[in-house]
């Protein structure tokens, strides 16, 4: 994940210089993002390389340090104590999401193998509005909807509006529901 993000955004030079400047002023604030980025990069290096010769380890250390130095503010633009809570709640959300994905996959399997599939499915598009505010929350819900079979997010706006393509009635009815509550709970946006 880290490699892909830095690779995709590296052309944006302003971000890079901004990181350098802010290092002097807010050294305390940018230290935690720096360390987390460094640990992530180095862990990725270790897993992908799988070679524990001293030379390769030190090469990995140096390159992780350089990358973390330049790009620590790309992965975690602002890191406060709140983000730790988000991380913990998000980790608790993942297993629930996986169970939900598996349940919905069986429903889709049933549809696909049903002899009279065309009478069961009823594809239609539904719109609904949520009160999610942060981009991260909106994106999480959009990707969760797409991952859950039977529903695909078509468009989503930063104001929390969604347009979803649903394959049949039950998938559509289940929609904002619990998943929205859970996502809102992760990012502390319960209203």
């Amino acid at each position, binding site marked *: *994940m880290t490699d892909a993000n830095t690779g995709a955004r590296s052309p944006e030079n302003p971000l890079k210089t901004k990181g350098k400047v802010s290092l002097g002023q807010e050294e305390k604030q940018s230290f935690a993002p720096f360390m987390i980025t460094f640990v992530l990069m180095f862990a990725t290096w270790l*897993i*992908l390389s*799988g070679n524990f010769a001293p030379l390769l380890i030190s090469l990995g250390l140096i390159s992780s340090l350089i990358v973390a130095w330049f790009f620590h503010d790309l992965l975690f633009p602002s890191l406060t104590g709140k983000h730790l809570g988000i991380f913990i709640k998000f980790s608790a959300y993942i297993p629930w999401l996986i169970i939900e*994905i*598996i349940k*919905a*996959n069986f429903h*889709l*399997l049933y*549809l*696909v*193998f049903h002899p009279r*599939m*065309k*009478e069961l*499915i*009823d*594809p*239609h*598009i539904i719109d609904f509005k949520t009160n999610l505010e942060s981009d991260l929350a909106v994106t999480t819900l*959009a*990707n969760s909807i*797409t*991952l*859950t*079979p*039977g529903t*695909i*997010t*078509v*468009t989503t706006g930063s104001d929390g509006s969604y347009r979803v*393509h649903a*394959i049949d009635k039950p998938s559509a009815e289940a929609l904002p529901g619990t998943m929205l509550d859970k996502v809102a709970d992760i990012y502390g946006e319960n209203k």
Partner: protein
Amino acid sequence: MNIIDIIVAFLLVSGFIFFLGGAIGIIRMPDFYSRLHPAGKLDTLGIGAMVAGLAVYNLHHFSLTALLVSGKMLLIVFFVFMSSPTATHSIVDAGMRAGLRPWTRKEGANMEQSEPRKEEN
């Protein structure tokens, strides 16, 4: 040892069933958008189950190298889980932008003319 074999077989077979369902679903579904449902998601869970099965099988002879290889396999699953919904979403978005109207129950009669192979019902 035997329990590991059973887990591996279970994961591989269920992954196979998901992939099979995805492939059949792509052929059977009536239109572009509904085809993406099995294509994008049954495959995601299929690859998850299959690669998890292979990762467990790989740990038969436990060693650091085997653990690292299994870690790489789980990374593949992670990346697929991240990128598959995004790709599905952008394909749907492209269809919407191009103005392709979704198949619905009522308009099914019109659509069938453009897809003559779907005469069974």
